[in-house]
């Protein structure tokens, strides 16, 4: 597939994908490479601000996200994989568009321009826009027979403030469906994973996670596939019931289908052993 034009993107990994969810990052980079999508890591990026900055101080939250925008070269879209990072980066951009003085003050502080018309998109949208035919041409393993619950996480499509942006629901099904996997519709796809409460108040989150996992088990799903690394971690970490269902980050399944060979190295980092799903897939093939 070297005849396909390489497409360049700036890439914002975010703290989770850079550390705890390194397997999501690694598999995404691999999938992107196979598809000819060149993800160039944003030079010296910082945390998007996260819920914590947003909670404690509005200016700080805006400035943290804005610094990343000031580092992004104009002329190529900025891609994020973490829904929350995407949300904060876009919110900051909206704000800087409206508040010209704030933007100018930050530009002066950093001595860098901030392009407010920079396109900020999610990796899944990159695939939907540029990758569907590339996907078909590069698929090496069939996902046929894999029953998964699509679990986007709340932030990708719900916040109404960004409602005029792309609505992502259905894209995971389009992409994984093209690779042969079957979405299970009747589980709790939209129930929140608990977010930071998983760290502060696990007793609130555990019953919720049980409920989600139980619904997936009842629907006879092999796994859940999520677009958010925090959802991935919470749904495995806070599942104390006997039913153990592996949770995959979307990029892992994608890279697997595209023929990645080092998947054992990512899967070993999972808290719930995902290998039974892989064995099922290889038997079906």
């Amino acid at each position, binding site marked *: 597939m070297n005849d396909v034009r390489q497409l360049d993107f700036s890439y914002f990994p975010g703290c989770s994908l850079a550390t705890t969810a390194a397997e999501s990052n690694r598999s995404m980079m691999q999938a992107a490479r196979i598809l000819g999508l060149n993800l160039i890591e944003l030079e*010296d990026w910082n945390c998007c601000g996260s819920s914590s900055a947003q909670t*404690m101080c509005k200016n700080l939250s805006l400035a*943290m996200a804005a610094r990343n925008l000031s580092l992004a070269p104009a002329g190529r879209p900025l891609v994020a994989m973490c829904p929350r990072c995407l949300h904060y980066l876009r919110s900051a951009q909206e704000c800087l568009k409206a508040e010209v003085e704030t933007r100018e003050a930050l530009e002066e502080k950093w001595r860098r321009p901030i392009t407010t018309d920079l396109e900020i998109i999610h990796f899944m949208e990159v695939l939907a826009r540029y990758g569907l035919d590339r996907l078909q041409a590069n698929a090496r393993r069939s996902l046929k027979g894999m029953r998964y619950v699509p679990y986007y996480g709340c932030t990708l499509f719900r916040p109404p403030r960004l409602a005029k942006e792309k609505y992502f629901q259905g894209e995971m099904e389009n992409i994984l469906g093209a690779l042969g996997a079957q979405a299970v519709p009747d589980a709790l796809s939209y129930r929140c994973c608990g977010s930071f409460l998983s760290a502060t108040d696990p007793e*609130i989150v555990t019953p919720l996670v049980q409920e989600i996992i139980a619904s997936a088990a009842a629907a006879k799903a092999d796994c859940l596939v999520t677009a958010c690394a925090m959802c991935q971690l919470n749904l495995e970490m806070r599942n104390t019931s006997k039913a153990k269902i592996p949770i995959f980050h979307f990029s892992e399944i994608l890279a697997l289908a595209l023929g990645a060979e080092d998947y054992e190295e990512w899967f070993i980092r999972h808290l719930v052993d995902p290998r039974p799903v892989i064995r099922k897939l290889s038997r079906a093939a």
Partner: protein
Amino acid sequence: MSIAQPLRHDVVTPYLEKTGKPGLSLAAEVKEQSGTDLFRCYQCRSCGNGCPFVQAMDYTPNQVLRLVQFGMRREVLSCKTIWICVGCHTCSSQCPMSIDIASVMDTLRLMAVEEGVAIGKPNIIDFHEEVLRSLEKYGRAHKLGIMLGYKRQTGRWLKDLDVGLKMLAKRKLDLIPSRVRDVKEITELFQCYWRESA
């Protein structure tokens, strides 16, 4: 015979005695800062019924809106609900009147922090402060450091130890933080941060 007068929400309330100047009511203030019209709420309770975390809250989200409308500043700013809300936006997407309730929660949290009221769920603000300490130092979140700092602050060392150890064993908690090179640009931003960092 008296004709019922519609409630006025935008007039002076007794809560601005601090400045001594006439100002906006709490509800009008929240409306302005959150950018959503919470006067439209007719208490259908869709938000409260759909909220995944409502059982851990002291007021349901619709009750929070009511407290704001009534101008009950101290009650609403010191309640647990605003801290338990993680911003999943289930309420906002279910509201038939298109009120962005999660945005109201964001606003109320900021007001609670700025006004220095007693925090309804102190362990959660401890957590956010710990995250900010990490961001101030490295420009990125160092999860192991955050969890250890949080445990030191709350004194609950043994809580959740099994999960923490499992994550360490799976190398999901890096020992060495990932950090920004030009960290000075980050620490400068924390000047607005009014709370002292330990």
